[in-house]
Protein backbone atom coordinates (compact mmCIF):
# COMPACT_ATOMS: atom_id res chain seq x y z
CA UNK A 1 0.00 0.00 0.00
CA UNK A 2 1.20 3.45 -0.94
CA UNK A 3 0.47 4.82 2.52
CA UNK A 4 3.31 2.83 3.94
CA UNK A 5 5.71 4.99 2.00
CA UNK A 6 4.49 7.97 3.99
CA UNK A 7 3.94 6.34 7.34
CA UNK A 8 7.26 4.54 7.62
CA UNK A 9 7.78 2.51 10.77
CA UNK A 10 10.50 4.99 11.82
CA UNK A 11 8.07 7.86 11.56
CA UNK A 12 5.36 6.11 13.54
CA UNK A 13 7.94 5.22 16.20
CA UNK A 14 9.04 8.80 16.57
CA UNK A 15 5.40 9.87 16.69
CA UNK A 16 4.49 7.40 19.42
CA UNK A 17 7.71 7.91 21.38
CA UNK A 18 8.95 11.43 20.67
CA UNK A 19 12.52 12.28 21.60
CA UNK A 20 13.35 15.42 23.53
CA UNK A 21 9.81 16.65 23.79
CA UNK A 22 8.98 19.30 26.39
CA UNK A 23 10.19 22.86 26.81
CA UNK A 24 13.50 23.44 28.58
CA UNK A 25 15.74 26.49 29.01
CA UNK A 26 16.79 28.15 25.80
CA UNK A 27 18.38 31.23 24.26
CA UNK A 28 15.46 31.88 21.92
CA UNK A 29 11.90 30.70 21.52
CA UNK A 30 9.63 30.76 18.48
CA UNK A 31 6.06 29.72 17.82
CA UNK A 32 5.16 28.53 14.34
CA UNK A 33 1.82 27.43 12.97
CA UNK A 34 0.73 25.74 9.81
CA UNK A 35 -2.35 27.80 8.97
CA UNK A 36 -3.98 25.26 6.70
CA UNK A 37 -4.25 22.52 9.30
CA UNK A 38 -3.62 24.12 12.66
CA UNK A 39 -0.40 22.28 13.49
CA UNK A 40 1.56 24.30 16.02
CA UNK A 41 4.97 24.17 17.59
CA UNK A 42 6.77 26.17 20.25
CA UNK A 43 10.48 25.54 19.98
CA UNK A 44 13.51 26.67 21.96
CA UNK A 45 17.20 26.42 21.11
CA UNK A 46 20.13 26.54 23.48
CA UNK A 47 23.64 27.09 22.16
CA UNK A 48 27.06 26.92 23.74
CA UNK A 49 29.23 28.82 21.34
CA UNK A 50 28.41 27.23 18.01
CA UNK A 51 27.32 23.95 19.49
CA UNK A 52 23.66 23.08 19.80
CA UNK A 53 23.14 22.03 23.40
CA UNK A 54 19.39 21.56 23.24
CA UNK A 55 16.37 21.86 21.01
CA UNK A 56 13.25 21.57 23.11
CA UNK A 57 9.72 21.78 21.84
CA UNK A 58 6.05 21.46 22.63
CA UNK A 59 3.30 21.33 20.10
CA UNK A 60 0.28 19.70 18.66
CA UNK A 61 -0.09 18.29 15.25
CA UNK A 62 -0.22 15.26 13.04
CA UNK A 63 2.13 12.30 13.19
CA UNK A 64 4.29 13.76 10.44
CA UNK A 65 4.90 17.09 12.15
CA UNK A 66 5.42 15.51 15.55
CA UNK A 67 7.75 12.81 14.29
CA UNK A 68 9.69 15.37 12.32
CA UNK A 69 10.32 17.44 15.46
CA UNK A 70 11.51 14.33 17.26
CA UNK A 71 13.90 13.44 14.44
CA UNK A 72 15.16 17.01 14.41
CA UNK A 73 15.97 16.82 18.10
CA UNK A 74 17.88 13.55 17.56
CA UNK A 75 19.83 14.88 14.63
CA UNK A 76 20.72 18.37 15.68
CA UNK A 77 21.46 18.28 19.40
CA UNK A 78 25.21 18.13 19.89
CA UNK A 79 25.99 19.30 16.36
CA UNK A 80 27.94 22.38 15.33
CA UNK A 81 25.79 25.04 13.75
CA UNK A 82 27.44 24.68 10.32
CA UNK A 83 26.80 20.94 10.30
CA UNK A 84 23.22 21.48 11.46
CA UNK A 85 22.63 23.95 8.63
CA UNK A 86 23.85 21.36 6.15
CA UNK A 87 21.40 18.83 7.57
CA UNK A 88 18.56 21.30 7.47
CA UNK A 89 19.26 22.23 3.85
CA UNK A 90 19.50 18.62 2.85
CA UNK A 91 16.20 17.81 4.56
CA UNK A 92 14.57 20.77 2.84
CA UNK A 93 15.85 19.55 -0.52
CA UNK A 94 14.48 16.08 0.16
CA UNK A 95 11.08 17.43 1.19
CA UNK A 96 10.82 19.64 -1.87
CA UNK A 97 11.67 16.81 -4.22
CA UNK A 98 8.08 15.66 -4.81
CA UNK A 99 9.17 12.09 -4.37
CA UNK A 100 11.66 12.32 -7.25
CA UNK A 101 14.80 12.31 -5.19
CA UNK A 102 16.32 8.98 -4.30
CA UNK A 103 18.52 9.70 -1.25
CA UNK A 104 22.13 8.65 -1.95
CA UNK A 105 24.61 7.40 0.64
CA UNK A 106 25.85 10.88 1.52
CA UNK A 107 22.33 12.05 2.14
CA UNK A 108 21.49 8.96 4.15
CA UNK A 109 24.54 9.46 6.34
CA UNK A 110 23.66 13.06 6.86
CA UNK A 111 19.93 12.64 7.50
CA UNK A 112 19.82 9.27 9.28
CA UNK A 113 16.19 8.66 10.39
CA UNK A 114 15.06 11.74 8.50
CA UNK A 115 15.41 9.97 5.14
CA UNK A 116 12.25 8.12 6.14
CA UNK A 117 10.40 11.30 5.24
CA UNK A 118 11.24 10.88 1.55
CA UNK A 119 7.79 9.33 1.01
CA UNK A 120 6.07 12.33 2.56
CA UNK A 121 7.47 14.56 -0.18
CA UNK A 122 5.03 12.94 -2.60
CA UNK A 123 2.13 14.47 -0.68
CA UNK A 124 2.24 18.25 -1.22
CA UNK A 125 -0.30 18.89 1.54
CA UNK A 126 1.92 17.13 4.06
CA UNK A 127 5.28 18.65 3.19
CA UNK A 128 4.43 21.67 5.34
CA UNK A 129 3.81 19.36 8.29
CA UNK A 130 7.24 17.78 7.92
CA UNK A 131 8.96 21.15 7.63
CA UNK A 132 7.21 22.91 10.50
CA UNK A 133 9.79 22.20 13.20
CA UNK A 134 12.73 22.70 10.83
CA UNK A 135 11.54 26.15 9.87
CA UNK A 136 10.98 26.91 13.54
CA UNK A 137 14.51 25.77 14.35
CA UNK A 138 15.96 27.95 11.61
CA UNK A 139 14.02 30.95 12.86
CA UNK A 140 14.96 30.34 16.52
CA UNK A 141 18.60 29.96 15.57
CA UNK A 142 18.55 33.25 13.69
CA UNK A 143 17.12 34.89 16.79
CA UNK A 144 19.59 33.25 19.14
CA UNK A 145 22.49 34.46 17.06
CA UNK A 146 22.69 38.02 17.94
CA UNK A 147 20.86 41.23 17.65
CA UNK A 148 22.80 42.05 14.49
CA UNK A 149 21.40 39.27 12.40
CA UNK A 150 17.92 39.62 13.83
CA UNK A 151 17.96 43.37 13.28
CA UNK A 152 18.93 43.18 9.63
CA UNK A 153 16.26 40.59 9.14
CA UNK A 154 13.67 42.74 10.83
CA UNK A 155 14.56 45.59 8.50
CA UNK A 156 14.63 43.58 5.36
CA UNK A 157 12.76 40.39 5.12
CA UNK A 158 11.19 39.55 8.46
CA UNK A 159 10.98 35.86 9.23
CA UNK A 160 7.45 34.72 8.52
CA UNK A 161 5.47 32.91 11.15
CA UNK A 162 3.88 30.67 8.60
CA UNK A 163 5.91 27.80 7.35
CA UNK A 164 5.99 27.70 3.61
CA UNK A 165 8.21 25.19 1.96
Amino acid at each position, binding site marked *: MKLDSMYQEVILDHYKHPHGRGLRDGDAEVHHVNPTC*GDEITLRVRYEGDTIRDVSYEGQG*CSISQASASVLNDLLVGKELSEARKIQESFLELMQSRGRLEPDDTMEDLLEDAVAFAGVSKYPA*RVKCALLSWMAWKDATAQAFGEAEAATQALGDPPTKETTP
Partner: protein
Amino acid sequence: MTASPQLSGLLDTDAIRKDFPILDRLVHEEHKLVYLDNAATSQKPTQVLDALSGYYERHNANVHRGVHVLAEEATALYEGARDKVAAFINAPSRDEVIFTKNASESLNLVANMLGWADEPYRVERDTEIVITEMEHHSNIVPWQLLSQRTGAKLKWFGLTDDGRLDLTGTEQLITEKTKVVSLTLVSNIMGTFNPIESIVRRAQEVGALVVIDASQAAPHMALDVQALQADFVAFTGHKMCGPTGIGVLWGRQELLNDLPPFLGGGEMIETVTMNSSTYAPAPHKFEAGTPPIAQAVGLGAAVDYLTAIGMDRIQEHEHALTEYAVGRLQDIPGLRIIGPPTAEDRGATISFTLGDIHPHDVGQVLDEQGVAVRVGHHCARPVCLRYGIPATTRASFYLYSTPAEVDALADGLEHVRNFFA
Protein backbone atom coordinates in the same frame (compact mmCIF):
# COMPACT_ATOMS: atom_id res chain seq x y z
CA MET B 1 -18.95 -5.47 6.30
CA THR B 2 -22.72 -5.84 6.53
CA ALA B 3 -25.26 -4.73 3.96
CA SER B 4 -26.40 -1.17 4.46
CA PRO B 5 -29.80 -0.74 6.03
CA GLN B 6 -32.90 0.50 4.27
CA LEU B 7 -33.61 3.92 5.67
CA SER B 8 -36.87 5.68 5.06
CA GLY B 9 -36.88 9.10 3.47
CA LEU B 10 -33.98 8.44 1.12
CA LEU B 11 -33.89 9.71 -2.44
CA ASP B 12 -33.35 7.37 -5.38
CA THR B 13 -29.61 7.79 -5.27
CA ASP B 14 -29.01 5.21 -8.01
CA ALA B 15 -30.80 7.51 -10.42
CA ILE B 16 -29.29 10.71 -9.03
CA ARG B 17 -25.73 9.40 -9.11
CA LYS B 18 -26.04 8.82 -12.86
CA ASP B 19 -26.13 12.60 -13.19
CA PHE B 20 -22.74 12.92 -11.47
CA PRO B 21 -20.11 11.13 -13.57
CA ILE B 22 -17.34 12.03 -11.16
CA LEU B 23 -18.89 9.80 -8.51
CA ASP B 24 -17.96 6.75 -10.63
CA ARG B 25 -14.33 7.64 -10.54
CA LEU B 26 -11.74 5.38 -9.01
CA VAL B 27 -9.09 6.91 -6.80
CA HIS B 28 -5.69 5.48 -5.89
CA GLU B 29 -6.20 3.03 -8.72
CA GLU B 30 -8.68 0.67 -7.13
CA HIS B 31 -10.99 2.45 -4.73
CA LYS B 32 -14.39 3.77 -5.56
CA LEU B 33 -14.58 7.44 -4.66
CA VAL B 34 -16.63 8.12 -1.53
CA TYR B 35 -17.02 11.87 -1.66
CA LEU B 36 -17.84 13.24 1.78
CA ASP B 37 -16.51 16.76 1.40
CA ASN B 38 -19.70 18.39 0.23
CA ALA B 39 -19.55 21.21 2.75
CA ALA B 40 -16.40 22.38 0.98
CA THR B 41 -17.89 22.07 -2.47
CA SER B 42 -20.47 19.83 -4.10
CA GLN B 43 -20.05 17.83 -7.27
CA LYS B 44 -21.81 19.05 -10.42
CA PRO B 45 -24.45 17.17 -12.39
CA THR B 46 -24.18 16.84 -16.20
CA GLN B 47 -27.14 19.21 -16.47
CA VAL B 48 -24.96 21.99 -15.06
CA LEU B 49 -21.89 20.99 -17.07
CA ASP B 50 -24.03 20.97 -20.23
CA ALA B 51 -25.43 24.40 -19.43
CA LEU B 52 -21.88 25.74 -19.10
CA SER B 53 -20.57 24.24 -22.32
CA GLY B 54 -23.83 24.94 -24.15
CA TYR B 55 -23.56 28.57 -23.20
CA TYR B 56 -20.00 28.82 -24.48
CA GLU B 57 -20.68 26.76 -27.60
CA ARG B 58 -23.74 28.63 -28.78
CA HIS B 59 -24.49 31.88 -26.95
CA ASN B 60 -21.29 33.42 -25.66
CA ALA B 61 -21.22 37.24 -25.75
CA ASN B 62 -20.94 40.05 -23.25
CA VAL B 63 -24.17 40.99 -21.54
CA HIS B 64 -26.21 44.19 -21.57
CA ARG B 65 -24.11 45.88 -24.21
CA GLY B 66 -24.85 44.70 -27.69
CA VAL B 67 -27.66 44.57 -30.16
CA HIS B 68 -26.52 41.45 -31.92
CA VAL B 69 -28.15 38.07 -31.54
CA LEU B 70 -25.54 36.54 -29.29
CA ALA B 71 -25.49 39.54 -26.97
CA GLU B 72 -29.23 39.33 -26.61
CA GLU B 73 -29.17 35.59 -25.99
CA ALA B 74 -26.39 35.87 -23.45
CA THR B 75 -28.23 38.66 -21.66
CA ALA B 76 -31.46 36.68 -21.63
CA LEU B 77 -29.66 33.64 -20.22
CA TYR B 78 -27.85 35.65 -17.56
CA GLU B 79 -30.99 37.51 -16.50
CA GLY B 80 -32.95 34.27 -16.75
CA ALA B 81 -30.60 32.79 -14.16
CA ARG B 82 -31.44 35.71 -11.90
CA ASP B 83 -35.14 34.87 -12.24
CA LYS B 84 -34.46 31.28 -11.32
CA VAL B 85 -32.45 32.20 -8.26
CA ALA B 86 -35.09 34.74 -7.19
CA ALA B 87 -37.78 32.06 -7.36
CA PHE B 88 -35.53 29.56 -5.57
CA ILE B 89 -35.22 31.80 -2.52
CA ASN B 90 -38.73 33.28 -2.80
CA ALA B 91 -37.43 36.82 -3.31
CA PRO B 92 -40.20 39.41 -3.69
CA SER B 93 -38.35 40.87 -6.65
CA ARG B 94 -35.72 39.63 -9.12
CA ASP B 95 -33.98 42.99 -8.77
CA GLU B 96 -33.02 42.05 -5.24
CA VAL B 97 -30.72 39.29 -6.45
CA ILE B 98 -27.12 40.41 -6.91
CA PHE B 99 -24.62 38.08 -8.53
CA THR B 100 -21.17 38.04 -6.94
CA LYS B 101 -18.28 35.64 -7.28
CA ASN B 102 -18.95 33.75 -4.04
CA ALA B 103 -20.39 34.09 -0.54
CA SER B 104 -17.23 35.77 0.70
CA GLU B 105 -17.64 38.54 -1.83
CA SER B 106 -21.32 38.86 -0.92
CA LEU B 107 -20.49 39.32 2.75
CA ASN B 108 -17.65 41.73 2.03
CA LEU B 109 -20.01 43.68 -0.19
CA VAL B 110 -22.51 44.16 2.63
CA ALA B 111 -19.81 45.11 5.12
CA ASN B 112 -18.43 47.71 2.72
CA MET B 113 -21.87 49.11 1.87
CA LEU B 114 -22.50 49.63 5.56
CA GLY B 115 -19.12 51.24 6.09
CA TRP B 116 -19.79 53.84 3.38
CA ALA B 117 -23.50 54.25 4.05
CA ASP B 118 -25.24 57.38 5.30
CA GLU B 119 -27.39 57.41 8.40
CA PRO B 120 -29.18 55.41 9.64
CA TYR B 121 -27.21 52.43 8.33
CA ARG B 122 -23.67 53.72 8.73
CA VAL B 123 -21.41 51.58 10.89
CA GLU B 124 -19.05 53.91 12.76
CA ARG B 125 -17.43 54.64 16.10
CA ASP B 126 -19.79 54.03 19.02
CA THR B 127 -21.87 51.58 17.06
CA GLU B 128 -21.73 47.80 17.31
CA ILE B 129 -21.55 44.77 15.05
CA VAL B 130 -22.73 41.38 16.33
CA ILE B 131 -21.67 38.01 14.90
CA THR B 132 -21.32 34.52 16.40
CA GLU B 133 -18.46 32.25 17.41
CA MET B 134 -19.48 29.65 14.82
CA GLU B 135 -19.07 31.82 11.73
CA HIS B 136 -17.00 30.86 8.73
CA HIS B 137 -13.97 33.15 8.47
CA SER B 138 -15.80 34.80 5.56
CA ASN B 139 -18.36 36.09 8.02
CA ILE B 140 -15.79 37.13 10.62
CA VAL B 141 -12.95 38.84 8.82
CA PRO B 142 -15.05 41.36 6.78
CA TRP B 143 -16.61 42.52 10.05
CA GLN B 144 -13.24 42.69 11.80
CA LEU B 145 -11.99 44.85 8.94
CA LEU B 146 -15.04 47.09 9.16
CA SER B 147 -14.63 47.33 12.91
CA GLN B 148 -10.94 48.22 12.60
CA ARG B 149 -11.61 50.84 9.95
CA THR B 150 -14.55 52.52 11.62
CA GLY B 151 -13.93 52.00 15.32
CA ALA B 152 -17.22 50.12 15.69
CA LYS B 153 -17.18 47.41 18.34
CA LEU B 154 -17.36 43.76 17.30
CA LYS B 155 -19.31 41.43 19.62
CA TRP B 156 -20.43 37.85 19.29
CA PHE B 157 -22.70 35.09 20.55
CA GLY B 158 -20.80 32.26 22.22
CA LEU B 159 -21.50 28.54 21.91
CA THR B 160 -22.88 25.89 24.21
CA ASP B 161 -21.01 22.68 24.89
CA ASP B 162 -23.16 20.79 22.39
CA GLY B 163 -22.45 23.07 19.47
CA ARG B 164 -25.37 25.47 19.58
CA LEU B 165 -25.60 29.23 19.89
CA ASP B 166 -25.74 30.41 23.45
CA LEU B 167 -28.69 32.78 23.32
CA THR B 168 -28.62 33.82 26.96
CA GLY B 169 -27.93 37.52 27.11
CA THR B 170 -29.28 38.30 23.65
CA GLU B 171 -30.64 41.56 25.03
CA GLN B 172 -27.25 42.67 26.33
CA LEU B 173 -25.53 41.63 23.14
CA ILE B 174 -27.89 43.24 20.64
CA THR B 175 -28.54 46.76 21.86
CA GLU B 176 -29.56 50.19 20.63
CA LYS B 177 -25.97 50.62 19.49
CA THR B 178 -26.09 47.57 17.23
CA LYS B 179 -26.13 48.44 13.54
CA VAL B 180 -25.83 44.97 12.09
CA VAL B 181 -26.15 41.35 13.19
CA SER B 182 -24.57 38.82 10.85
CA LEU B 183 -24.84 35.09 11.40
CA THR B 184 -24.87 31.76 9.71
CA LEU B 185 -28.07 29.77 9.28
CA VAL B 186 -26.19 26.45 9.29
CA SER B 187 -22.71 25.91 10.71
CA ASN B 188 -20.17 24.75 8.14
CA ILE B 189 -18.15 22.88 10.73
CA MET B 190 -20.75 21.40 13.11
CA GLY B 191 -23.86 21.31 10.92
CA THR B 192 -25.92 23.13 13.56
CA PHE B 193 -29.19 24.71 12.41
CA ASN B 194 -29.44 28.06 14.15
CA PRO B 195 -32.76 29.27 15.51
CA ILE B 196 -32.59 32.75 14.13
CA GLU B 197 -36.16 33.95 14.83
CA SER B 198 -35.44 35.35 18.29
CA ILE B 199 -32.27 37.04 17.06
CA VAL B 200 -34.09 38.61 14.12
CA ARG B 201 -36.85 39.81 16.44
CA ARG B 202 -34.37 41.41 18.81
CA ALA B 203 -32.47 43.03 15.92
CA GLN B 204 -35.69 44.46 14.55
CA GLU B 205 -36.54 45.85 17.97
CA VAL B 206 -33.35 47.88 18.07
CA GLY B 207 -33.33 48.73 14.37
CA ALA B 208 -30.28 46.67 13.45
CA LEU B 209 -29.90 45.07 10.03
CA VAL B 210 -29.72 41.28 9.83
CA VAL B 211 -27.35 39.51 7.46
CA ILE B 212 -27.72 35.76 7.04
CA ASP B 213 -24.93 33.57 5.72
CA ALA B 214 -26.92 30.83 4.00
CA SER B 215 -23.94 29.16 2.30
CA GLN B 216 -24.57 25.85 4.08
CA ALA B 217 -28.36 26.19 3.98
CA ALA B 218 -29.16 26.99 0.35
CA PRO B 219 -27.80 23.64 -0.92
CA HIS B 220 -29.71 21.56 1.60
CA MET B 221 -33.13 23.03 2.41
CA ALA B 222 -35.84 25.29 1.06
CA LEU B 223 -34.72 28.87 1.53
CA ASP B 224 -37.33 31.59 1.87
CA VAL B 225 -35.85 35.03 2.34
CA GLN B 226 -39.23 36.51 3.18
CA ALA B 227 -39.87 33.99 5.93
CA LEU B 228 -36.40 34.60 7.34
CA GLN B 229 -37.21 38.31 7.59
CA ALA B 230 -33.57 39.13 7.10
CA ASP B 231 -32.21 42.18 5.33
CA PHE B 232 -29.45 40.40 3.45
CA VAL B 233 -28.87 36.74 2.61
CA ALA B 234 -25.60 35.50 1.14
CA PHE B 235 -24.72 32.14 -0.38
CA THR B 236 -22.35 30.55 -2.85
CA GLY B 237 -23.06 28.59 -6.04
CA HIS B 238 -20.41 25.89 -5.90
CA LYS B 239 -21.80 24.20 -2.79
CA MET B 240 -25.23 23.71 -4.41
CA CYS B 241 -24.30 21.87 -7.60
CA GLY B 242 -23.35 25.09 -9.39
CA PRO B 243 -19.96 26.10 -10.76
CA THR B 244 -17.32 28.02 -8.84
CA GLY B 245 -17.06 31.74 -9.43
CA ILE B 246 -20.70 32.59 -8.77
CA GLY B 247 -22.33 33.69 -5.55
CA VAL B 248 -25.46 35.51 -4.55
CA LEU B 249 -26.34 38.40 -2.32
CA TRP B 250 -30.02 38.97 -1.82
CA GLY B 251 -30.95 42.28 -0.20
CA ARG B 252 -34.18 44.10 0.51
CA GLN B 253 -35.00 46.46 -2.35
CA GLU B 254 -35.30 49.55 -0.18
CA LEU B 255 -31.84 48.95 1.26
CA LEU B 256 -30.30 48.32 -2.12
CA ASN B 257 -31.72 51.62 -3.29
CA ASP B 258 -30.39 53.53 -0.31
CA LEU B 259 -26.98 51.95 0.16
CA PRO B 260 -23.95 53.11 -1.82
CA PRO B 261 -22.17 50.95 -4.39
CA PHE B 262 -18.86 49.40 -3.45
CA LEU B 263 -17.08 48.49 -6.67
CA GLY B 264 -17.27 50.94 -9.56
CA GLY B 265 -17.03 50.14 -13.25
CA GLY B 266 -18.92 49.25 -16.36
CA GLU B 267 -22.41 47.85 -15.97
CA MET B 268 -23.12 49.61 -12.68
CA ILE B 269 -23.58 53.12 -14.06
CA GLU B 270 -26.34 55.17 -15.58
CA THR B 271 -24.32 58.08 -16.95
CA VAL B 272 -20.68 59.01 -16.53
CA THR B 273 -18.96 62.36 -16.96
CA MET B 274 -15.42 63.19 -15.98
CA ASN B 275 -16.69 64.80 -12.82
CA SER B 276 -19.22 62.33 -11.54
CA SER B 277 -21.51 59.45 -12.35
CA THR B 278 -24.96 58.28 -11.56
CA TYR B 279 -25.67 54.65 -10.90
CA ALA B 280 -27.87 52.04 -12.42
CA PRO B 281 -30.60 50.72 -10.16
CA ALA B 282 -30.00 47.50 -8.22
CA PRO B 283 -28.99 44.82 -8.91
CA HIS B 284 -26.69 46.31 -11.58
CA LYS B 285 -25.48 49.02 -9.22
CA PHE B 286 -23.65 46.27 -7.33
CA GLU B 287 -22.38 44.31 -10.33
CA ALA B 288 -19.46 46.33 -11.69
CA GLY B 289 -17.73 44.95 -14.74
CA THR B 290 -18.43 41.90 -16.87
CA PRO B 291 -20.14 39.45 -14.56
CA PRO B 292 -19.53 35.69 -14.35
CA ILE B 293 -22.03 34.99 -17.13
CA ALA B 294 -21.52 31.31 -17.83
CA GLN B 295 -21.30 30.66 -14.09
CA ALA B 296 -24.63 32.40 -13.48
CA VAL B 297 -26.17 30.30 -16.24
CA GLY B 298 -24.66 27.23 -14.58
CA LEU B 299 -26.12 28.25 -11.24
CA GLY B 300 -29.51 28.66 -12.92
CA ALA B 301 -29.23 25.08 -14.18
CA ALA B 302 -28.24 23.92 -10.69
CA VAL B 303 -31.28 25.61 -9.21
CA ASP B 304 -33.47 23.90 -11.80
CA TYR B 305 -31.87 20.59 -10.97
CA LEU B 306 -32.36 20.93 -7.21
CA THR B 307 -35.89 22.26 -7.60
CA ALA B 308 -36.89 19.32 -9.79
CA ILE B 309 -35.78 16.93 -7.06
CA GLY B 310 -37.29 19.09 -4.35
CA MET B 311 -35.49 20.86 -1.54
CA ASP B 312 -37.74 19.30 1.09
CA ARG B 313 -36.97 15.84 -0.27
CA ILE B 314 -33.27 16.63 -0.20
CA GLN B 315 -33.50 17.75 3.41
CA GLU B 316 -35.39 14.60 4.33
CA HIS B 317 -32.79 12.43 2.61
CA GLU B 318 -29.96 14.14 4.42
CA HIS B 319 -31.76 13.92 7.73
CA ALA B 320 -32.15 10.16 7.36
CA LEU B 321 -28.47 9.85 6.48
CA THR B 322 -27.45 12.04 9.40
CA GLU B 323 -29.39 9.91 11.83
CA TYR B 324 -27.71 6.82 10.51
CA ALA B 325 -24.26 8.40 10.39
CA VAL B 326 -24.45 9.81 13.92
CA GLY B 327 -25.40 6.35 15.19
CA ARG B 328 -22.60 4.58 13.35
CA LEU B 329 -19.99 7.12 14.33
CA GLN B 330 -20.93 7.03 17.98
CA ASP B 331 -20.27 3.31 18.03
CA ILE B 332 -16.64 3.91 17.20
CA PRO B 333 -14.49 3.84 20.34
CA GLY B 334 -12.81 7.17 21.05
CA LEU B 335 -14.85 9.12 18.52
CA ARG B 336 -16.16 12.45 19.78
CA ILE B 337 -18.65 14.44 17.72
CA ILE B 338 -17.94 18.17 17.83
CA GLY B 339 -21.36 19.77 17.61
CA PRO B 340 -24.90 18.53 18.20
CA PRO B 341 -24.66 14.86 19.25
CA THR B 342 -27.96 13.82 17.64
CA ALA B 343 -29.59 14.35 14.23
CA GLU B 344 -31.97 16.88 15.79
CA ASP B 345 -31.83 20.39 14.29
CA ARG B 346 -28.67 19.79 12.41
CA GLY B 347 -27.57 19.12 8.88
CA ALA B 348 -25.50 16.38 7.31
CA THR B 349 -22.15 17.90 8.15
CA ILE B 350 -20.48 16.05 10.99
CA SER B 351 -17.19 17.00 12.62
CA PHE B 352 -15.41 14.72 15.01
CA THR B 353 -12.16 13.81 16.66
CA LEU B 354 -10.88 10.25 16.96
CA GLY B 355 -8.96 9.59 20.16
CA ASP B 356 -5.76 11.56 19.93
CA ILE B 357 -5.12 10.67 16.32
CA HIS B 358 -4.62 13.94 14.52
CA PRO B 359 -7.27 14.73 11.88
CA HIS B 360 -4.54 15.06 9.26
CA ASP B 361 -3.63 11.47 9.80
CA VAL B 362 -7.27 10.41 9.89
CA GLY B 363 -7.90 12.14 6.57
CA GLN B 364 -4.81 10.68 4.93
CA VAL B 365 -5.62 7.10 5.83
CA LEU B 366 -9.27 7.57 4.81
CA ASP B 367 -8.15 9.01 1.50
CA GLU B 368 -6.07 5.97 0.82
CA GLN B 369 -9.32 3.99 0.99
CA GLY B 370 -11.07 6.37 -1.37
CA VAL B 371 -12.96 8.27 1.33
CA ALA B 372 -12.64 12.04 0.83
CA VAL B 373 -13.21 14.10 3.97
CA ARG B 374 -11.93 17.46 5.03
CA VAL B 375 -9.54 17.93 7.92
CA GLY B 376 -8.42 21.07 9.67
CA HIS B 377 -10.26 23.99 11.19
CA HIS B 378 -12.65 24.39 8.23
CA CYS B 379 -12.26 28.17 8.12
CA ALA B 380 -13.95 28.29 11.51
CA ARG B 381 -10.93 28.31 13.79
CA PRO B 382 -12.75 29.97 16.73
CA VAL B 383 -14.93 26.85 16.96
CA CYS B 384 -11.85 24.66 17.39
CA LEU B 385 -10.50 27.05 20.03
CA ARG B 386 -13.86 27.01 21.80
CA TYR B 387 -13.77 23.22 22.10
CA GLY B 388 -10.06 23.05 22.86
CA ILE B 389 -9.08 21.01 19.82
CA PRO B 390 -6.56 21.80 17.10
CA ALA B 391 -8.70 20.57 14.26
CA THR B 392 -11.45 18.14 13.32
CA THR B 393 -12.22 15.59 10.66
CA ARG B 394 -15.41 16.55 8.87
CA ALA B 395 -17.67 14.31 6.82
CA SER B 396 -20.41 16.09 4.91
CA PHE B 397 -23.12 14.44 2.89
CA TYR B 398 -25.37 15.55 0.04
CA LEU B 399 -28.30 14.42 -2.07
CA TYR B 400 -26.25 11.72 -3.81
CA SER B 401 -24.74 10.28 -0.61
CA THR B 402 -25.77 6.78 0.44
CA PRO B 403 -25.89 4.68 3.60
CA ALA B 404 -23.19 2.52 2.00
CA GLU B 405 -20.96 5.60 2.01
CA VAL B 406 -21.66 6.11 5.70
CA ASP B 407 -20.55 2.51 6.16
CA ALA B 408 -17.42 3.14 4.11
CA LEU B 409 -16.60 6.03 6.41
CA ALA B 410 -17.22 4.02 9.58
CA ASP B 411 -15.19 1.06 8.29
CA GLY B 412 -12.47 3.43 7.17
CA LEU B 413 -12.29 4.93 10.64
CA GLU B 414 -11.87 1.46 12.16
CA HIS B 415 -8.96 1.00 9.82
CA VAL B 416 -7.51 4.35 10.93
CA ARG B 417 -7.74 3.27 14.56
CA ASN B 418 -5.89 0.05 13.84
CA PHE B 419 -3.28 1.81 11.76
CA PHE B 420 -2.31 4.15 14.57
CA ALA B 421 -2.96 1.73 17.44
